[in-house]
């Protein structure tokens, strides 16, 4: 148990630090890369939380596809070099930090506000042990949540069409 906790806090700390770095770098490329580090740390956390399938998906899809896309666009627009800081002026800085701080406080308070949940601790772990990790997720996905699944595919189709149309040089 102790070990799990130490690993958890290690990766959690890494995630927070890299997120902080992400939002403060001058170069968009650097921000992107720090975000990738954050994603990887989160993947590790997912593993610790009995979501191994999701962890892999995180790495493959999020870090592997989405962030790559980001980097493509950054390169395409030639924004890679570190330019002058694009952080807002002192007023904007103050407002931003204040609001984010308030939000943080509220969200932390929200943890206590959770109403009585029907807890089923360890259900996922047991399901994974029985069926394997992937079927544990896949069976409900193709069972109870089939309709959202199919709709998501249409959503992706729409996104593709939209992206193609928007990025054309000449409409």
């Amino acid at each position, binding site marked *: 148990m102790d070990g799990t906790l130490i690993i958890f806090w290690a990766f959690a700390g890494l995630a927070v630090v890299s997120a902080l770095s992400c939002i403060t770098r001058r170069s968009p490329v650097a921000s992107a890369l720090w975000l990738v580090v954050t994603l990887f740390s989160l993947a590790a956390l997912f593993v610790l939380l009995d979501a191994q399938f999701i962890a892999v998906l995180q790495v493959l899809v999020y870090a592997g596809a989405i962030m790559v896309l980001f980097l493509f666009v950054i390169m395409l627009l030639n924004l890679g070099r570190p330019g002058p800081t694009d952080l*807002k002026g002192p007023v*904007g800085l103050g*407002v*931003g930090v204040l*609001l*984010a701080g*308030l*939000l943080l406080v*509220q*969200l932390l*308070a*929200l943890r206590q*506000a959770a109403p009585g949940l029907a807890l089923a601790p360890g259900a996922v772990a047991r399901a994974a042990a029985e069926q394997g990790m992937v079927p544990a997720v896949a069976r409900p996905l193709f069972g109870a949540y089939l309709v959202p699944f199919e709709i998501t595919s249409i959503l992706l189709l729409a996104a593709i069409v939209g992206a193609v149309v928007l990025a054309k040089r000449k409409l």
Partner: protein
Amino acid sequence: MPAPPLSLLWVVPALPLVGFVVNGTLALTRPTAKRAVSIVGVGTLVLAFVAAALAVAELARQHPAAPLVFRYWEWIPAGDLQVAFALQLDQLAAVMILVVTGVGALIHVFSVGYMHEDPGYARYFAYLNLFVFFMLILVLGANFPVMFVGWEGVGLCSYLLIGFWFNEQINADAGKKAFIVNRIGDFGFLVAMFLIFTRFGTLDFETVFAKAPAALMPGGAVVTAITLFLFLGCTGKSAQIPLYIWLPDAMQGPTPVSALIHAATMVTAGVYLVARCGVLFALSPLGSAVVAGIGALTALFAATIALKQWDIKRVLAYSTVSQLGYMFVGVGTGAYAAGMFHLVTHAFFKALLFLGSGSVIHAVHHAYHATHTHEDAQDMRNMGGLARYMPWTAALMWIATLAIAGIPPFAGFFSKDEILGAAFAESAVRPLWYAFWAMGLAAALLTAFYMTRLMLYTFHGPNRTGEREREHLHEAPPIMTGPLVVLGVLTVLGGALNVPELFGGNAFLEHWLEPVTSLAHRLQPAVEVAHATEWALVAGAVLVAALGIVGAFRLLKPEALVPARLAPPETGLARLLWKKWYVDELYDAVIVRPVMWLSREVLWKIVDARLVDGLLVNGTAAASRALGWLGSRLQTGEVGVYVVLFVIGVLAVVGAVVR
């Protein structure tokens, strides 16, 4: 033929109303249809008189102890306030409707001749009919609001008729003055109504007067307040001090209007009101003292002014104010029958005097018109010796003069004498009444004097109208002298209405009005005097009247008069009286000018222009604009700002959940 039921009482006021509608329509569509207008105008009045007579006859047959009330519909059903449109007929109202319709009919006939050449002929009759309608509503009303409708309505018609020839500024101003001054009185009436409603919870005469002795403390603050405010209304409508100032100016209207409205009927509404509310006044010694006191003072005051007026109608106007004062002395002393008696007799002889003066003015005006001169046809200095040319008018007006002076056996003698007698009797209990009696007596002397003066300057002595005009002077046509004759007869015989027991009469009116006045008399019993005292008073009154007449004959010299345009201005005391004791000027300086200043400088420039327009109207617009501007500042077009607002919104939502 069986008598029609009294529930058809509404027919009496309805007839002149129909006349108004028809004549009004004719005035707007075919104003030249004079024949139709005359027939409708006069016809409805005659029919109304017949209907009134039938109603009164039926009432006499039934001889009820309480008024007969007819509720026609629920006018104001508003929670605690339940006011019905109801008419009532009792002995007091009976007297009034006969006077209004009877004298009214005669004056309508006279008007046919008098107004014949006027282009506004149809409009005139429409207004006159409307006036009679409202006056009948006033006297037949069974509760204060219905009476007030009539009260206001006659004020409106008075305004319309005074300013009948509104193309002249002076006529329009006179109409306005009458209406505005009346409004001040109406305010008093309204406040009194509010007080009555708060105390009694109802405004019906029957209920109020029945409950009054129990609900009101005699001499208490409430009843005194009610009576004083009611009397304020009376001073406005019946031209007493301090609100009499509109009546002389009202002479700008056509003379038959002066006869009907400002002599016989509308101005008597105040007297009727006091008589109607006798119970309330009997419960308030202060209230009735104020009524009698103001009446006496006005009687004397107006008489002094009449002494030095040159316009024939002005003399009669101030005479009316003075005689109304007498009536108020009567009803203020609790001698309701005496006051009403004088009201009736005054209606006869004052209408006769006004109509007679109308004939005179008509003739002199005609003469000036024929010779294309522009002199004042109403100034007595332009008259003189008219008895030669208008014998009938002169004779009839002499009858009226003797009546108003109080010479027996004419009508005015009995009525005036009764009032003075009642005042003298009351002085045994309330010494203040000595002063009222004395003022009344002095006023009687002056009345005899100035009326004789009027007759002397108008009908006797040398003629001052002018050489060429003289040949155009002639008697009025029969349609105008006819009503004069009728009124003359009534003036002679009218005294028979209430001959006191002293002279062996049966005091008919006194007994007739008993069902109405009995409660008031129980609360405030009349004082009896010894027969010897009564005879002494009668003798004194006749002596005073004779003194006045003889004095006028002796002291006044019609030969010394010159036509108005050559006359020198008055000086000294004469000037003071001629200028009406400068009361109008005083009111102008003390009231009118400050109010105008206040209206212009404060209410208009500050309250209306700056506060209402500036602050409220423009200010609201400016505030709206400012708010809008503030809102527009949010629309920066910058995504960064929008995101900040977004996050603030999220904070709010999450904050709500966390709480």
